[in-house]
């Protein structure tokens, strides 16, 4: 028997404020709610309040995790916080959260900046830390408040994104099986400009010109400090890269599609997920769609969908689940987990 890193428990938190398709229809006037639902699969998005940061969502999720599992704050010795909406430029938000959560001062705490692939990247780090005996109990928190970046007049992203936090406990168990892994990871920075908040960092400071709001040919308004997404380019990237990542992972794991019990992909939008499902050849009953009441919550979609599938009994102890994250960067990652 050897030490295998495993996902012990997942919990998540959604902010109280909701944005529904009916709200958007009232706001935009000429809105075709049914068409947008048909394409996105989203009815309701959770939206962080004006004083609610990603760290607050993550801390709330971690507190739920402590309540729902045997993990206690004093036993966490490594905190990984994955976000693209940190509280500050510095310090690392993970350091602030170490204090908020009452984690011991011998606990390591780092931020990682990834979006839709972030949960899979976080798992790759957590597995390495546990199996190399650097850490015993890793707390992986994913949380984002993308809605803060969105201009109210930009329907292309406002329909899709919601805010959330998720907390995952990874620790070692004595087992002869691989419970997390193998991994397929990849990056293509040529796609950086297709999903971006351009202004506010060192490259493009937040000047008056960066704040100048413009309207694009589709009638969506935004400035350079807002989130911009080139939907068709992102879609083309996923059609090209995600099936290849799935094939690569199956090869690394030396298994066939039929040996995977359930597939949890990053919940981007229903249209994209259905296209990927058909192209890869996954049966609909083995493929997770979990968007309707949460929206696309970036790095938290996979843990939320995974825990929802566990809660619903769709997957149970022993189930082999494929997790695939892909998007902003471009960045992608896929792995297998076994539910324990």
């Amino acid at each position, binding site marked *: 028997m050897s030490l295998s890193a495993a996902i012990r428990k997942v919990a998540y938190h959604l902010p109280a404020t909701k944005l529904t398709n009916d709200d958007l229809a009232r706001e935009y006037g000429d809105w075709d709610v049914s068409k947008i639902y048909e*394409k996105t699969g989203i009815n309701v998005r959770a939206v962080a309040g004006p004083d609610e940061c990603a760290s607050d969502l993550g801390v709330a999720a971690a507190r739920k995790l402590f309540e729902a599992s045997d993990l206690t704050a004093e036993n966490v010795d490594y905190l990984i916080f994955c976000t693209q909406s940190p509280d500050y430029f510095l310090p690392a938000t993970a350091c602030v959260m170490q204090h908020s959560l009452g984690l011991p001062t011998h606990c390591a705490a780092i931020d990682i900046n990834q979006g839709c692939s972030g949960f899979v990247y976080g798992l790759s780090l957590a597995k390495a830390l546990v199996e190399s005996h650097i850490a015993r109990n890793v707390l992986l928190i994913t949380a984002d408040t993308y809605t803060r970046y969105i201009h109210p007049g930009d329907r292309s992203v406002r329909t899709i994104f919601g805010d959330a936090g998720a907390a995952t406990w990874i620790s070692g168990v004595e087992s002869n099986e691989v419970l997390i892994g193998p991994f397929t990871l990849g990056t293509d920075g040529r796609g950086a400009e297709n999903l971006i908040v351009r202004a506010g960092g060192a490259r493009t400071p937040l000047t008056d010109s960066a704040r100048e709001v413009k309207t694009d040919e589709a009638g969506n308004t935004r400035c350079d400090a807002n989130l911009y997404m080139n939907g068709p380019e992102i*879609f083309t990237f996923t059609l090209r890269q995600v099936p290849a990542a799935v094939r690569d992972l199956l090869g690394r794991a030396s298994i066939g599609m039929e040996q995977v019990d359930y597939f949890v992909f990053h919940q981007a939008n229903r249209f994209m997920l259905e296209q990927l499902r058909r192209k890869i050849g996954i049966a609909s009953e083995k493929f997770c769609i979990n968007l309707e009441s949460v929206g696309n919550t970036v790095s938290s979609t996979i843990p939320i969908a995974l825990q929802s599938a566990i809660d619903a009994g769709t997957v149970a102890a022993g189930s082999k689940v494929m997790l695939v994250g892909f998007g902003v960067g471009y960045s992608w990652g896929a792995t297998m987990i076994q539910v324990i």
Partner: protein
Amino acid sequence: MDQQRFLTELAGILEAGPLTLDRPLTDGNWDSVAMLSTIALVDELCDVSLSGRDLSQCTTPKDILDLIERTKA
């Protein structure tokens, strides 16, 4: 690729009447959702991933067919 099937499916995406090769795409509902659907259609029909940026430059169905050929090459 079956050109007639492509035109029929594209007409459905655009919610326009019957399409000819030279009819402007903007006679129908040529928005970002239609572009996503067209990328998916072309991927399904001929296993070609069109660039969204290149697709947005197309003004007629013939432009899209030409783009498919250029992408294949």
